[in-house]
């Protein structure tokens, strides 16, 4: 069963890691963990705030998981959790763990997932810099 969620604050180790997801039905787990950087375009980042639209976000993730199954492996199971609220450099902001029978499906699905999330997941990031200024970021 998929686990699609937003998590208040930095992601804890049990969501960043995938040890608890191992199961003999799945020969591969492809993971992506996004970490808050301490720099952006030459500026020192000291803090970061994520705001989300959870209702739309869960809908986006549910449809993404269905698309990944259609494109790569009908038995794929998705764990995708995005942090919200206040984070600092080094914190985990997003964890994607995709379980599939074989590695190629899992890896291709993970790449597709992060690109779709960057494009469609309704989350907005506000960076705070060492000089105290803040900027809302747009996707890259």
């Amino acid at each position, binding site marked *: 069963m998929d686990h699609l969620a937003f998590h208040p604050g930095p992601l804890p180790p049990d969501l960043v890691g995938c040890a608890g997801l191992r199961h003999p039905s799945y020969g591969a787990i492809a993971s992506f963990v996004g970490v808050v950087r301490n720099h952006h375009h030459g500026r020192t980042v000291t803090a970061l705030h994520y705001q989300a639209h959870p209702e*739309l976000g869960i809908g986006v993730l549910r449809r993404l998981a269905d698309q990944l199954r259609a494109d790569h492996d009908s038995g794929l199971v998705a764990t995708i959790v995005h942090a919200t609220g206040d984070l600092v450099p080094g914190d985990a902001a*997003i964890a994607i763990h995709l379980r599939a029978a074989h590695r190629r499906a899992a890896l291709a699905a993970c790449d597709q997932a992060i690109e779709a999330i960057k494009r469609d997941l*309704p989350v907005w990031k506000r960076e705070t810099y060492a000089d105290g200024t803040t900027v809302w970021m747009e996707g890259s």
Partner: protein
Amino acid sequence: MIIRLFGPMAAALGVDRLESGPLSDTEGVLAWIAERHPTLADLCRRSRVAVGDAFADGPLPPHTAEVAVIPPVSGG
């Protein structure tokens, strides 16, 4: 109709929702905001509209009470 705002759009106006009269389509929602808040016109051109848990494009379902304006996202 309630128009929910997020991220840079909410920060720019200092509110997280606006209230309009009935609007029939997504273009109308974005145009309504841009007309009343010209500083957001450029952002509106790059924004999408959502109803409930899905993006919308074009005519809104009858009697839609609430929409969300989704400026360019930056998660991940």
